[in-house]
């Protein structure tokens, strides 16, 4: 499977016994799942809200206080109201065998009682919580390819011979982008481009980058079909945006940036080539 299964381990009600919940949470992590633990004293509403926000595939409920007959079905009910019944709900704790049937009827997929091996729980989740992920896998990919890699340099003239001479790339385009206070130089290689960025002043974004990090890779740009649509998708998935909407980049491209805090420190540009740009690029 491409992504780890996300699981919410939740303690509904006032019960403070979380040894089992914590052990299961760590055990499922060791089984390769991504586990979020709610902490104590959660109402069913809080649990469902967290599950939706965190986009989990499975909720594991733990109760040792005898309140399971009220709490567990309430969570399933709320999920149905939110049209999120595809989230798998399982339960565990001090739950008498006699209650299991009623809980199953109420929509709890499986009740695990004391003595269950973590492996069994993990296998059950794997077997039953994959539907949503398959659906995600069937979506077309957002990125169509790497459009270019941006490299911040102090002086283009100094490094250009390395690219054109040693590596043998050819310059396809040079442009001054006034509002970014930068001069860009594009070189083409194997269907993608390298963009060399040289600052034109001491306080533009590229100059700031150079002061902070020195010369180096500045950003990576992915080609997308529609920048604005891609921004909305990224935002919905919880990524912070630098640009709320597409803005013009060089050569008639539409571009926008995602915040590097959410992308492992790499500044990501989304870029969309327009027809006019194709014409110029093709000439």
């Amino acid at each position, binding site marked *: 499977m491409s992504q780890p299964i996300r699981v919410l381990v939740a303690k509904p009600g006032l019960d403070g016994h*979380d*040894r089992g919940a914590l052990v299961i949470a760590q055990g499922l992590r060791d089984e390769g799942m991504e586990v979020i633990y709610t902490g104590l004293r959660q109402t069913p509403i809080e649990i469902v809200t967290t599950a939706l926000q965190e986009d989990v595939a499975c909720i594991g409920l733990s109760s040792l206080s005898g309140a399971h007959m009220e*709490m567990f079905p309430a969570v399933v009910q709320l999920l149905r109201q939110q049209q999120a019944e595809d989230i798998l709900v399982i339960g565990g704790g001090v739950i*008498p*065998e006699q209650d299991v049937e009623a809980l199953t009827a109420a929509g709890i997929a499986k009740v695990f*009682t004391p*003595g269950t091996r973590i492996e069994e729980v993990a296998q059950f989740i794997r077997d039953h919580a994959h539907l949503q992920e398959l659906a995600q896998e069937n979506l077309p990919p957002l990125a169509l390819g790497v459009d270019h890699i941006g490299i911040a340099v102090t002086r283009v003239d100094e490094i250009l011979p390395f690219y054109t001479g040693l590596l043998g790339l050819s310059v396809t385009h040079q442009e001054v982008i006034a509002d970014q206070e930068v001069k860009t130089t594009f070189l083409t290689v194997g269907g993608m481009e390298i963009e060399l960025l040289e600052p034109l002043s001491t306080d533009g974004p590229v100059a700031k980058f150079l002061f902070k990090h020195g010369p180096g890779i500045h950003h990576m740009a992915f080609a997308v079909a529609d920048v604005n649509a891609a921004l909305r998708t990224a935002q919905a998935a919880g990524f912070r945006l630098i640009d709320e909407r597409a803005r013009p980049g060089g050569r008639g491209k539409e571009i926008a940036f995602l915040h590097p805090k959410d992308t492992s420190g790499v500044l990501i540009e989304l870029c969309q080539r327009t027809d006019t740009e194709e014409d110029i690029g093709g000439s």
Partner: protein
Amino acid sequence: MNLRDQQDLWERSCTQFAEKHPERKPTFRTSSDIEVKRLYVPENVLQIEQDYFDKLGFPGEPPYTRGIQPTMYRGKFWTMRQYAGYGSAEQTNERFRYLLKQGQTGLSTAFDLPTQIGYDADHAMAAGEVGRVGVSISSLEDMEILFNQIPLDKVSTSMTINAPATVLLAMYLVVAEKQGVSWDKVAGTIQNDILKEYVARGTYIFPPKPSMRLITDTFAFCAQQVPHWNTISISGYHIREAGSTAVQELAFTLANAIAYVQAALDKGLKIDDFGPRLSFFFNAHNHFFEEISKFRAARRMWSKIMKERFGAINPKSLQLRFHTQTAGSTLTAQQPDNNVVRVTVQALAAVMGGTQSLHTNARDEALALPTEESVRIALRTQQILAYESGIADTVDPMAGSYYVEALTDAVEREAWRYIEYIDSLGGAVEAIEQGYMQQEIHQAAYETQRAIEQRDMVVVGMNQFTVDRESQPDLLRVDPNLGKLQTQRLEKLRSERPFDAWQTALDELKRGAQGQDNLMPLIINAVRTHATVGEICDTLRDVFGEYRPAIF
């Protein structure tokens, strides 16, 4: 040849023997990862006579390793105190009177979660929880029903109540007053141990600072007014249930105790005024000898802490008195009758360890609340140990066992290391706020789970010696309508009680909480005006705020 040479020789031949006939495991270790040697000999233990006095002493004398009374159970047995409570005050009162009739010698009250977290039975957060894990007490009326026909000057009562301990103690005192029993005649214990709630049990309300204030307020108030009341029961039990080792249980409990003592001293209380009323609560777990050693080490360490660290002089301040409960987390849902045997072995360790009172778990507690029959068997277990086995006929029968003395030393040594580390973090409150204790416990719990799953640790009837068909025992059911009944009762109370007195009492409590005065008299006053547990706690919540744990 001296003993060491002789032993070397024996070890050598023994190793050859063991090569031919391998032992069950490469090494044997206790729950706290202390290595258990093949054999213990005198030189592992007491070198000279002076060692006897330094490490053991006589029963009733420092360092109290052998027990806090000179005659121990030859005088009177430990108090048989079964933890009970479920449903309504009427139902629990009935169970209390049943237990007293069966020969139980003290009461121990289990409250439901809403009561323990300071919510009345009609609060939204109480839905589904009323009367589940204990009795539902919202009002003074509930408390009067709970102790109906139980003379509070004759019976001592332990109450498992922490964050709202002041409120339930106030209710108990007002009920005593109504029975015509003066406060210097009532005896009992409130758990009142908030630190382990943050660590392991979860029924906290307020942040640490105001919680510590409520605790030191009870120390000061009871020292003056309720001299036979144990103002705190510093509990390792729940730390152990959460998965700690024996050494962690001991060390974290004593570290918490040090924090309470320090808080009281900082408030200006005198060590020997409140020291004698501090009590402890430990777990009796599976490793028989390590448990006995833990209890003995606990007494020795506490007397040292009180004397050397805090300068206590009164012998009562140096004596670690404790309640014990057998380990609920060791009980299995599979083949539940086997639990009777587990409980027996654990109870035996508690008695060998010199406990002052004991709760033996019922066999069906891994499934639900215990039935009357199961509770009776649990109590009978204690009675058989006391009256038939003869173990109560001499004091500290394990003393001088080469093994137990060496293990007592080892448990103590390891526990000091934890306490020193916690001191270096700035004390128990700091260590808890940083999540240190929680993480240590969780790590131990996870290792236990893995050991069970890999069958390094055998749990009879669960991961070995299983049966294909488990029988379905009868279980106790709590009336799910109790929440509604309690709500109606509260509605009636709120419409009938005199409003002005109630309002004034809560206003005064609020002003008191904003200031520095002892809150106990103000809470007692509020209880007299029929303010409920939830209303009193809400008043304090307004001033103190609520504790929000970090998730580690």
